């Protein structure tokens, strides 16, 4: 983490944090449910091979402005603008969970912005025959286990670091859940199915084998819809947020896909 740089960009005139670490060709990462309240080991693994650039989307930790975004179009444009402002136009992009739904649309609608795409258990589709899990309506003690195969991985990321401000930390966590709800409530279906055919980039679909939020079988639906060449990798011992459960394996699969 010694080379970590923290910058700020403006998205719709609101500040959003950008982390940069490593060297080599830029690689973007958009985090999943809960965002990134603090640095995680997964990013170190990616940074061993690439310059990892991690913008926060509005409302997720480090980012403001989610309450200005009302429609799906607002969110897709905000994601586009965040990627451009962070210097990621034309770079490879990894997007997980809730951000996966937005990254898939950016890749399809603005093909020049995303070179190759990695979607980690993205939201965006909903199938009545195999419903997605509800990440919000969880009793607090059940939430870590709903999101991660190793609940302690979620707890570690969301525990207040020493010296932190407890109130701000709590508000940031609630805000992240709200931001995701703002564009995905109640089912997580952004009608992405209609637009998957616009994605022509080489795409890797990466799924935790034990994902309790987006069933791993959804990988097949994405694969069938995306026009570009796709492959799917399933990670054993991982839940919905595979980058928290299995940082090594997730990073390895991504770097191997990107070559």
């Amino acid at each position, binding site marked *: 983490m010694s080379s970590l740089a923290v910058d700020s960009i403006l998205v719709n005139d609101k500040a959003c944090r950008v982390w940069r670490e490593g060297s080599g060709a830029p690689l973007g990462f958009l985090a999943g449910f809960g965002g990134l309240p603090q640095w995680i080991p997964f990013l170190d693994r990616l940074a061993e091979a690439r310059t990892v650039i991690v913008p926060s989307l509005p409302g997720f930790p480090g980012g403001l402005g989610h309450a200005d975004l009302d429609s799906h179009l607002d969110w897709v444009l905000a994601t586009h603008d965040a990627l451009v402002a962070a210097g990621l136009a034309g770079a490879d992009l990894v997007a997980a969970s809730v951000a996966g739904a937005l990254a898939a649309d950016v890749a399809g609608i603005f093909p020049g912005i995303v070179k190759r795409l990695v979607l980690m258990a993205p939201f965006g589709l909903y199938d009545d025959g195999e419903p997605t899990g509800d990440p*919000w*309506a969880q009793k607090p003690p059940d939430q870590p286990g709903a999101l991660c195969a190793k609940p302690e991985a979620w707890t570690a990321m969301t525990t207040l670091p020493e010296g932190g401000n407890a109130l701000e930390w709590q*508000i940031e966590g609630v805000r992240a859940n*709200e931001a995701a*709800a*703002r564009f995905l*409530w109640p089912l997580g279906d952004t009608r992405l199915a209609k637009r998957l055919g616009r994605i022509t980039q080489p795409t890797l679909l990466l799924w935790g084998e034990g994902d309790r939020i987006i069933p791993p079988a959804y990988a097949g639906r994405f694969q069938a819809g995306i026009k570009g060449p796709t492959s799917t990798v399933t990670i054993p011992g991982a839940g919905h947020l595979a980058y928290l459960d299995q940082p090594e394996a997730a990073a390895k699969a991504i770097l191997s896909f990107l070559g």
Partner: protein
Amino acid sequence: MKQMWFHLMPYTELPDDFRDKHPSVWVDIDSRLFNPERAHIMYNDFMDELEYAAEMGFDAVCVNEHHANGYGLMPSPNLIASALARRTSDAMLCVMGNSLALYNPPLRVAEEFAMIDCISGGRLIAGFPVGTPMDTCYAYAQNPSMLRARYLEAHDLVMKAWQTPETFSFNGRFNQLRYANIWPRPVQKPHPPVWIPGGGSVETWRWCAEMDYVYCYLSYFGYKAGQATMKGFWDEMDRLGKDRNPYRAGFLQFVGVADTHDEAMQLYREPAEYFYGRCLHVSAQWANPPGYTSEATIRAGVESQIGRAAGLMQKEILKARRAVTEMRDIVDAGYVIVGTPDEVAERLREVAKTLNVGHLMYLLQYGNMSKQLALYNTRLFAEKVMPQLRDLFDDRWEDRWWPKPMAAHRRVEPAPLGERPRRAAAE
């Protein structure tokens, strides 16, 4: 003081093992527990009870809105209020209320409330709750991140529709209408009184003060738990320079009256334990959709005096959900006030004065209380408690928030059934 009779319309036949076998009374309650033919009887009993309360001289009868809820069988309180408009003549009709963000377009509320106001000759109190998380975000799938903004915009639209004589365009964030023009219009001018049921949110208190609306704290946990919240409310009114007119506020209280204290404990034990044991069995998973509680309220919850008051209330609620399901504890905690008419009157006088509340809303039917007992409770209360409290506050304060109906002699009564032309049996 105004004394109002409130019905939640609880399903009265939840099984004895409901708490152990079912996760929640709300949102995902098992619909196989619902027997429509039994509900036929319940609805008619409940409406009899409301009509009886009006006849016994309560100042108002109150109904409210819940969805997918085993203790509240009124997804549409307007249906009940409409029937009450025909079968009552002097009592006000307090619809407490319509969750504005759930109606698309919200003009529907302006229209239906105007209908009730016309049918009743101007007896409507228009309640506008945001709605609980269970009702709004889960049962009706509203986005918690947008709920409050939608609610506020819907409020603006309804108020404009009631008060603007011309057809107008409305270009809101969530609602766009080229031709907004409601027909009918309410009897009461400029509009029926607006009351806001809410929890302990600072923003709601401020908004009520700004708009000059009545704030109603509809807690199921009685006057002891309500003290902190109402203190928070009045402290905020002081800060905003508003007077302490008790008619700015409403408060809900469960009551059971009998000839002796022991008899009251005995008579109301089962319905109270049914309510606190089964009806309030709500799964914690529905409590906190993200964004429902504003960041300002979360901050206030940690930082301020008011927040500590609201926090106290939350603790009471949690405590209640965990433990207080036995009659003695329920009464000790103040959730239900029971006793002889004099005891109850004395306690309610203390409640009204301590909380400084001019609109007391009584729940005299709760849980699985039978119609017979509900009517007994209502009659005894009306005859022996109500008169003792009627004059409270009126020497000093005016209720500016009470409906202004048409003069009694200008209002019509429904024609008795026997006088109507009937079809011949052969037709």
